């Protein structure tokens, strides 16, 4: 906690910008882009080609799947760039989950593209072997394309859940970055070989123009944020031990004033100390962000988070964000319900600070032991202030066998009028899915359950 002397001077940071853009609008834009490109493909001959014999059909299919492969790549690229408006509209977690969908789809389409391009070109290149040799180097720009596609394929395969979980986050991430090169490398063949693009001058102009603009926007949009966070870092102001394995860290300094943020959001943290500067990790704000600084509460878990516990006062910390759309506005005038496990209490603590005094929130905390819950006293005080209740469910999960604390029945018993609540669920993935299921069964609408979906 900040020293008492500072309490009077500090005021909350400006709230994040709101946007009128909705998830649906993004979907509409994406669908519209696909429709336009499909129309261009059909009107430049693709459609009639499809029904004029096998060799034409293969070519038309190769052309369309090529266009779609590229579009999904561009959509994925734009989503991962976390541009401000899109992030404010759907939150970083959904951006990156959509990004995964775009990425997986791109991988599948790429396979189809390659396996339709080969039969399409076989008649004019003299058989399968010659076609493959052409596609891997004899045709100009195809060596670039083949290697670029291989990189895209590696990135997609490494992102499969089972494989992703076997390698460290950073190893995966650095390999993931090579996809920028892969995308750029596979570009030129689109112009030299594409039936639509090599032959229709205006379509080509629009395609090349928008590809370049999207690529540049994504690349610079993304890395400008990284550069900004590193060049204007915050400083560690105070460090407090909260429980045996958690500490709270207040990050402050002049640069805090640049940020906008609210309770319920999270930040990407990069400690600019030796051996740590190349890692970022997401942490929720555990207090309303103020001019005094951002407070995060860090549990000792893996590599990076345990190293962060060795931060010292004065260390520089680069902060990206805050990100996320689980801000206090989501409650409207409904009753808030919080379900948190372990260090998931952190955003609850921040959100409680921003609730009106008549909101009567219910807080369900899950932990092995009460003294493992960080900020418990603070949460109790904050909940009491607005007429709320706090329940701590302790004990080991195995010991509770048969009595699922998040079944619809147990939830309904603990929370009166549960179906008219807005719920925020934070914690381990398993807890999150269990709680979501129980809440849905207890009658909550999907839109009234807020979580940060895991995105990696």
């Amino acid at each position, binding site marked *: 906690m900040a020293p008492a002397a500072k309490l009077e001077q500090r005021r909350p940071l400006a709230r994040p910008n709101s946007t009128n853009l909705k998830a649906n609008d993004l979907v509409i834009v994406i669908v519209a882009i696909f429709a336009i490109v499909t129309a261009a493909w059909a*009107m*430049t*001959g693709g459609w*009639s080609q499809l029904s004029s*014999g096998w*060799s*034409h059909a293969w*070519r038309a299919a190769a052309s369309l799947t090529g266009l779609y492969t590229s579009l999904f790549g561009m959509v994925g690229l734009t989503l991962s760039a976390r541009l401000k408006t899109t992030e404010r509209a759907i939150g970083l*977690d959904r951006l990156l989950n959509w990004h995964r969908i775009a990425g997986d789809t791109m991988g599948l389409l790429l396979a189809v593209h390659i396996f339709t391009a080969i039969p399409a070109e076989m008649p*004019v*290149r003299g058989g399968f072997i010659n076609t493959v040799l052409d596609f*891997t*180097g*004899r*045709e*100009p*720009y195809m*060596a*670039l394309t083949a*290697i*670029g596609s*291989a*990189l895209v394929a*590696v990135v997609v395969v490494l992102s499969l859940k089972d494989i992703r*979980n*076997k390698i*460290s*986050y950073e*190893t995966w991430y*650095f*390999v993931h970055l*090579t996809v920028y*090169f892969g995308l750029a*490398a596979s570009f030129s063949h689109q112009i030299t*070989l594409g*039936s639509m693009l*090599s*032959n229709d001058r205006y379509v080509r102009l629009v395609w090349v123009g928008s590809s370049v603009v999207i690529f540049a926007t994504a690349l610079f949009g993304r890395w400008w944020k990284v550069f900004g966070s590193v060049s204007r870092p915050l400083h560690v102001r105070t460090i407090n031990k909260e429980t045996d394995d958690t500490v709270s860290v207040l990050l402050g300094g002049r640069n805090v004033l640049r940020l906008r943020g609210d309770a*319920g959001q*999270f930040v990407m943290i990069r400690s600019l100390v*030796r*051996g740590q500067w*190349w890692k970022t990790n997401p942490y*929720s704000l555990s207090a309303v962000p103020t001019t005094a600084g951002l407070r995060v509460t860090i549990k000792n*878990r*893996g*590599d990076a988070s*345990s*190293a962060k516990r060795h931060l010292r006062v004065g260390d520089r910390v680069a902060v990206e964000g805050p990100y996320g759309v689980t801000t206090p506005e989501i409650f409207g005038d409904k009753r808030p319900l919080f379900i948190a*496990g372990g260090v*998931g209490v952190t*955003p609850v603590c921040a959100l409680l600070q921003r609730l009106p005094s008549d909101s009567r929130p219910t807080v369900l905390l899950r932990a092995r032991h009460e003294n493992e819950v960080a900020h418990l006293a603070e949460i109790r005080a904050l909940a009491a202030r607005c007429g709320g209740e706090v329940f701590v469910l302790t004990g080991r999960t195995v010991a509770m066998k048969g009595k699922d604390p998040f079944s619809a029945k147990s939830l309904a018993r603990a929370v009166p009028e549960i179906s008219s609540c807005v719920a925020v*669920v*934070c*914690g381990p*993935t*398993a807890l*999150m899915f269990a709680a979501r299921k129980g809440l849905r069964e207890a009658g909550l609408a999907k839109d009234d359950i807020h*979580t940060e979906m*895991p995105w990696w």
Partner: protein
Amino acid sequence: MTFIRRCHGGELMSSDNSSPSSRFALARRLAPALALTSAGVALINVLDRPVDLSAFGSAGVADIGSAADAGAGQMVTGATVPAPTTTTVTTTTVVATTVPPVNGAPPDTTPAPGACGAKKSTGSTTDIVDRNRVFGTLVVTAKFASNGELCDVAVNFDVWDRKSVQIEQYALPKLNARAKKAKSANIQGVSGATAVSRAYAASLQAAIDAKPL
């Protein structure tokens, strides 16, 4: 606000946990990405061996420059097309290669009566169109024996992209051969090259129609 279950990383990463600030942690994690990128760049350099289009010269393709210089008589003896001096991608002539002079006479500017090429006519400049895409144009020049029979065909084309060049270079010799065999413009198209087949037939028909009497 969602936290990873321990088993996601915690246990698997435990070997790393023992050395959280290992000096080589970054190098270890960067290595796969760097290896992949350098292998990619190296492979691109090894693989990138674009086939020079002039290689197609041996398949009976001559540069327009030399073909244009060549008179009608020389075109008859297409088997001895002069080697192209320069190869331009966009404008090429495909000359039928297998027409022996009827009387074995050396190339002559005024062909003997009865020899192929006694009469000759040039067809219309026809767009190579597939639906509403225009790939370029071609012109067929037909040669007739003195009895008026179609006996040889040559074609000039002008297309704008490399891929069409390849398709044309593949399809036009076939079409020439088919036309000579059929002795008319009523020939089967080359699959995978419908647009050029259609344009070829149209231009050839125009040439036949314009046959000097």
